[in-house]
């Protein structure tokens, strides 16, 4: 019986030259069009139910929330519900905003008042742009995945859960001198 003879030393060599040529052409194209810094903008585009709830709040104008930041980075939240005012404050830590406490406070306010979506924001003149953006980040969405807020869609009657807390932020002291 004849046995097949296989050369154990022979290698199958795949010709990668053409593949490399394609990659070499793609790399410069992608290098030129790549965005190494991802620039974003603070959005105002929201789910339909949230947009409807914001419009409703603006039309009714019965609930108002003002968020002020002073020069010592103390954040004061004033809640005005049908003329009844309540104030909460988060003191700054060594001239820095206490983000964790602020986020927790805003979550608590949102849980008690799920129909409020708009904040009137009034930072002090000395507060930096970086701090303004960080406060907006704390207020816009819940960071905790377990904490969600109910929003009722007026058209369908369905209730959805959203992580949006106060996505509508208006700079109210823009006209001040």
């Amino acid at each position, binding site marked *: 019986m004849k046995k097949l003879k296989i050369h154990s030393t022979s290698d199958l060599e795949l010709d990668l030259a053409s593949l490399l040529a394609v990659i070499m052409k793609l790399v410069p194209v992608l290098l030129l069009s790549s965005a190494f810094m991802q620039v974003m903008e603070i*959005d105002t585009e929201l789910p339909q139910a949230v947009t409807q709830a914001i419009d409703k709040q603006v039309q009714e104008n019965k609930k108002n929330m003002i968020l002020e930041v002073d020069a010592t980075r103390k954040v004061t939240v004033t809640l005005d519900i049908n003329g009844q005012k309540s104030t909460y404050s988060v003191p700054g830590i060594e001239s820095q905003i206490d983000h964790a406490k602020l986020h927790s406070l805003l979550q608590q306010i949102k849980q008690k008042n799920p129909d409020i979506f708009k904040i009137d924001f009034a930072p002090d003149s000395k507060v930096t742009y970086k701090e303004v953006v960080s406060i907006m980040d704390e207020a816009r969405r819940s960071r905790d995945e377990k904490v969600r807020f109910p929003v009722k869609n007026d058209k369908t009657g369905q209730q959805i859960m959203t992580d949006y807390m106060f996505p509508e932020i208006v700079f109210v002291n823009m006209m001040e001198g």
Partner: protein
Amino acid sequence: MSRRKRFALNVNQNSTFTLSIASMTDMFTLLLVFLLQNFATSSVEIKPQQNLALPTSNSYKNPILSVQISVSTDDIKVNDKWVARIQNRDIASADVDPQDTNFIQPLFKELQAIAADPNVKKEEKNQIMLQADQNLPYQTLRKVMYTASMAGFPQVKLVTVLGN
């Protein structure tokens, strides 16, 4: 026998030299995957400005076409055109209206010219995309936003870098 032939190396003419490019292909494949991940998908081109460090935020919305105002620690530019100076992290006094200290005259003129320009797209006309240095005080930004709203640009989009 010529001198060249005498000292020539004895090279086997039948043997072929094969370069192993497998590892090089591996490297380029990795590079290709990385570049594909970072491929720019936004339709708006934002040029980084000198002396301008954008703040980070958790927003992940791509910018849309609008008038670009950049406020660095040195100057204010509208669509890359220089309009006003920044001194000590505030608007230079020469560029501010003495009657209304929030009003930046050259910025207002430039924005009004854009608003009146028939070549500028309609969707670009009522909103601005504000790029500002993260260490500038709110006082400076307020003046820019105030002037922009007076010039007919009430919607302000804040440009940030994707962060934590």
